[in-house]
């Protein structure tokens, strides 16, 4: 060690005169806020976990429908409402709930971010983890920064794209993002971890541990986890993105909320009319900066500057910690010295956002896929609307994928093009569409999947009213076709009656020259509706010898194959 360098321990971070938080006793708005955050986060997680089919064996309740109103958080989300209104010119069903939040925000400001939003609460939680004493670093990172305007540009870009017919808000909307990430990545990963550990317990060969392990497994299956293990296409990326967002709080608290969140930006814009706000008594302020230290939105709560209504999440920390009562939230705060209602919006930034939104749609659609050629693997859930309309509605929230009892629905990677990223597609090798199941159609908040009854889905006379695709046989891989081996598994599982897979008896030659009669499968394109159970059950494990593609889907007037034979009455 160099003799000149001072060897004393690094100086304790100490910069403020008041190092400890001195919250005021009694029922404060801050405590109420904390309570609200806890309740709504738990409610959100409960509904997420309960977006599942567990079965009910006490009686036989028919028809089978979701148990809870699992889409309510999505319906309360004003960004979902606004974007789909721009893209479809109509406010779909339960999205009317969002108007409630809009009206309250117009009066109060961004309370949603500080009191309701599950991602806001998680960011809040992760941002609150601090090491050591408060230091200038922790104060500085809560000052209002120019880059906080980025979220408004993101919002404008997304809204312009939505107005042109491509709803992409779900990529960044905090409700969709959180739902999708937890439901399709974190929970399945946690399930995998827990059950791997339980397997290790079974492997220990200590019998008295098996019963508690069994009870734990049963209990978790019946509550937190799905009954069967689930796998999601590119799930690791969903989880990775979400964990990154949570870890960003270590750099700057609520970095996502402050800089990126398009919902926060929308609510911030609405807050300009708000009657409620922070009044400051600048003369009382002694610049202790405790308010800044605890500020969630980087909304300039400190004395000497104006408070930013558009950035504030109404967490009420500042009012609560101010030792000199220099800050007070109230209706009709003094505007001239205390409040800046409008966010800082650079014209250049706004134009960039608008331009990006304008450029997105034509760029996405110069790739063939949506209009020129349909993607073969873009197999949409039953009840889905036609593709252009689908892209104008789907919020990529993942609710349909979470509730699918066979794990058939997955977030698309690029199977549905750039625009379809994380929209639902059916991957039949992982799961298939149960012919009498309509669960996914009853959880879509925006009508990308329209609600169906079992009768509407099944149709009459063995011809499905709703077709999602069509099965094709790969004769080079099929056992009776290519390997002179008996099979019929696809036909056995085909759920339509009469079967959409027909068998023909043929005598074929085996490698040793002997003859054998096998039954070779054919697909009846009139009857096949693309459920994919044949692909799912095909014993050729890696790539199935029978597979479905999207052609023939009833929702599309163009992605068709055969002329109708005859009208079915």
């Amino acid at each position, binding site marked *: 060690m160099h003799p000149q360098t001072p060897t004393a321990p690094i100086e304790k971070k100490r910069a403020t005169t008041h190092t400890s938080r001195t919250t005021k006793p009694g029922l404060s708005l801050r405590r109420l806020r904390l309570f609200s955050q806890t309740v709504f986060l738990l409610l959100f997680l409960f509904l997420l976990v309960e977006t599942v089919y567990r079965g009910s064996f006490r009686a036989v309740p028919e028809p089978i429908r979701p148990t809870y109103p699992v889409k309510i958080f999505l319906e309360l989300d004003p960004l979902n409402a606004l974007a789909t209104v721009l893209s479809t010119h109509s406010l779909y069903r339960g999205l009317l709930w969002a108007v409630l939040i809009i009206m309250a925000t117009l009066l109060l400001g961004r309370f949603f971010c500080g009191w309701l939003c599950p991602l806001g609460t998680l960011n809040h939680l992760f941002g609150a983890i601090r090491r050591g004493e408060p230091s200038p670093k922790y104060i500085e990172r809560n000052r209002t920064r120019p880059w906080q305007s980025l979220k408004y540009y993101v919002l404008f870009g997304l809204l312009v794209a939505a107005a042109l017919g491509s709803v992409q808000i779900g990529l960044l909307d905090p409700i969709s993002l959180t739902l999708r990430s937890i439901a399709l990545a974190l929970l399945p990963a946690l399930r995998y971890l827990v059950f791997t550990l339980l397997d290790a317990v079974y492997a220990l060969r200590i019998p008295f541990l098996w019963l508690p392990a069994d009870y734990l497994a*049963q209990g978790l299956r019946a509550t937190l986890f799905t*009954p069967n293990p689930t796998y999601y296409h590119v799930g690791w990326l969903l989880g990775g993105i979400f964990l990154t967002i949570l870890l960003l709080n270590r750099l700057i608290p609520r970095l996502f909320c402050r800089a990126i969140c398009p919902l926060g930006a929308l609510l911030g814009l609405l807050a300009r009319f708000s009657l409620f706000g922070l009044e400051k008594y600048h003369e009382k302020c002694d610049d202790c900066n405790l308010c800044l230290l605890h500020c969630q939105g980087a909304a300039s709560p400190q004395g000497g500057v104006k408070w930013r209504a558009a950035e504030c999440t109404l967490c009420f920390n500042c009012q609560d910690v101010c030792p000199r009562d220099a800050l007070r939230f109230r209706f009709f705060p003094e505007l001239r010295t205390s409040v800046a209602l409008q966010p800082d919006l650079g014209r250049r930034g706004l134009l960039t956002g608008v331009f990006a939104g304008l450029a997105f749609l034509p760029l996405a659609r110069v790739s063939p896929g949506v209009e020129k050629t349909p993607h073969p693997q873009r197999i949409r859930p039953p009840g889905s609307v036609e593709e252009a309309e689908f892209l104008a509605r789907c919020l990529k929230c993942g609710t349909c994928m979470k509730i699918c009892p066979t794990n058939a629905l997955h977030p698309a990677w690029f199977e549905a093009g750039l625009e379809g990223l994380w929209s639902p597609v059916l991957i039949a090798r992982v799961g298939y569409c149960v012919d*009498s199941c309509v669960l996914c159609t009853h959880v879509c908040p925006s009508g990308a999947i329209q609600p169906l009854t079992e009768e509407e889905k099944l149709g009459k006379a063995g011809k499905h009213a709703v077709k999602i695709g069509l099965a094709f046989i790969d004769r080079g891989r099929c056992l009776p076709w290519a390997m002179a081996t008996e*099979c019929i598994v696809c036909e056995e599982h085909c759920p339509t009656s*009469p079967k959409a897979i027909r068998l023909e008896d043929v005598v074929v030659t085996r490698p040793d020259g002997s003859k054998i009669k096998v039954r070779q499968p054919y697909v009846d394109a009139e009857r096949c509706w693309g459920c994919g159970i044949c692909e799912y059950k095909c014993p050729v494990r890696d790539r199935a010898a029978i597979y479905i593609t999207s052609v023939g889907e009833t929702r599309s007037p163009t992605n068709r194959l055969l002329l109708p034979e005859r009208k079915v009455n």
Partner: protein
Amino acid sequence: MADESSSSRREFLLRTAKAGLAVAASGALGLFLHNRKPRQPRAALTPTRRDLSVPTPAGTPEFVLVRGPSPRAITQAAIRELGGMQAFISRQDIVLIKPNIAWDRVPQQAANTNPEVIQTLVEMCYEAGAKEVRVTDVSCDEARRCFQRSGIAAAAQAAGARVILPEEHRFREVALGGEVLDHWPVFVPFLEADKIINVPIAKQHSLTRVTLALKNWYGILGGQRHRLHQRIHESLADLATFMKPTLTLLDAVRILIRNGPQGGSLDDVRQLNLVAASVDQVAVDAFGVTLFGYQPADFRYLVLAESRGLGTTRFEDLKLKQVNL
């Protein structure tokens, strides 16, 4: 100065010793792990069989056929004619009833065993003194939907049975010792029960033409059981070799004559109002094929099973009793 040099010497020795230990430890660990078998080799499983048959009471019929409008009444009559449930079930037995709960279908579609038949059997087992009656199957469709929509879970639970869903970790690798089936994962409840009653429903099937009691044993297996179709007759005979039930009761209240085994349309269903019961599972299947107008001798798996001494295909040669209610 002397202090300083001694302390630096000590530090030198200490650090050298630590580094040396670390080097030695990594070398030793490397040698220890080198070419080590990652897992203990699987203990060679000895082939097992599940023979749960009990001797039939002398003088009682060996094969019973009951017709009647009430599924409950014909089930009761069939068991009564065979000597009563207490002839098969001992006190404190854990009894497993194996219906066909393979498909996400309602009872009218005749893809799963009749729930009323199952409920009646559960009640009779308890009356005979069973400690616990369990009802389970390894479904083809999503199990929860099958158990719910078939009505079997509700009916069995109403009679006090424990309904067990096929959970993914409750399968055990078993040496079945068969011609095709050597090692296969078997659902554990089938290995634990003291008595097993097989209750298939009669349905058309495009590979075996009819699916009955022996085909119902597919529902004890996990794993890639669809590969078994490649040698269906041998695998069915293997299953019957492995699993000899206490009783077999064929549900032909409704049978599926087309588009089996999962059907879907009510046009595929025939109402026969009939059950057949015997301790001889091969005889039950031999009778079952005649319901579809076939001859047992044309079924290779039945001939195979008979040649292995698992039962007789000439059910009519057994001591037969027919009842019409």
